[in-house]
């Protein structure tokens, strides 16, 4: 239904987003501290939003537009909460 050009764009976007998601997940796994993981999870959520938007664009529908907004809000609330309650558990010298 949609033109071959859009299909090619969809394939490219999918491959790029999949690779960046893998890289973000590797940072989540490797991240030394919880704060790195929080930032990586934010990036992962942004990648999920990007995938949703790409899908909406190529297939010309608006079904999950509000889902994109909700995902960005949940990501924000999550990372702010974690940042609020993170404490330094390493032993202190003084």
């Amino acid at each position: 239904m949609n033109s071959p050009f859009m299909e090619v764009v969809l394939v490219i976007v999918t491959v790029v987003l999949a690779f960046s998601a893998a890289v973000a997940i590797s940072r989540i796994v490797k991240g030394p501290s919880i704060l790195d993981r929080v930032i990586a999870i934010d990036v992962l959520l942004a990648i999920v939003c990007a995938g949703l938007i790409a899908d909406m664009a190529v297939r010309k529908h608006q079904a999950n537009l509000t889902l994109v907004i909700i995902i960005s809000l949940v990501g924000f609330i999550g990372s702010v909460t974690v940042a609020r309650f993170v404490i330094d558990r390493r032993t202190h010298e003084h």
Partner: protein
Amino acid sequence: MNTDLVLEIVAGLCLVLGALMSLAAAIGLLRFPDLLSRMHAATKPQVFGLLLLLIGLALQLRSWAAVPVLIIAWLFQLLTVPVSAHMVGRAGYRTKHLHRETLSVDDLDAVVQKAAAEEAERRKADAAEEAALAADPELAAELAAEGDAGKKPAGKPKGVLRTKEPKETAAKASAKRRRES
């Protein structure tokens, strides 16, 4: 016909660029050495990538009704992502996550030292006050009476009422304090 084609090509280009922005964010996240630099990598491309993707979506949908919702979606991200990165950065700074060597200048250092100095001063003032109280018991008794009368003693109630050590003589109390400090 060709305007449709042009719009579609531009939209496709925006989508690919937006995806590449997410890729840049992810790779920056992986390769940057330090929490604070990773924050840059995470937030900037994320907001710009989302803008490109939303522009691509708007061009594809080609209906003015959807534009406000897209603007709201982008504004949410534009407002919330920097705030969350700032919170994470502050938490990182407070819990010593940053490596001093990667910092060229630490603006917060002066503020932190000043706050620490003030805190130390206040604690010294407390200790001096307690020592004075331990030195002459009547002042402590009078203050204790004042405390019982319900009137809040001047200054810091925490350190002032030393009723715990009436038995110790003043000399022993100050000796103990000298040994502690």
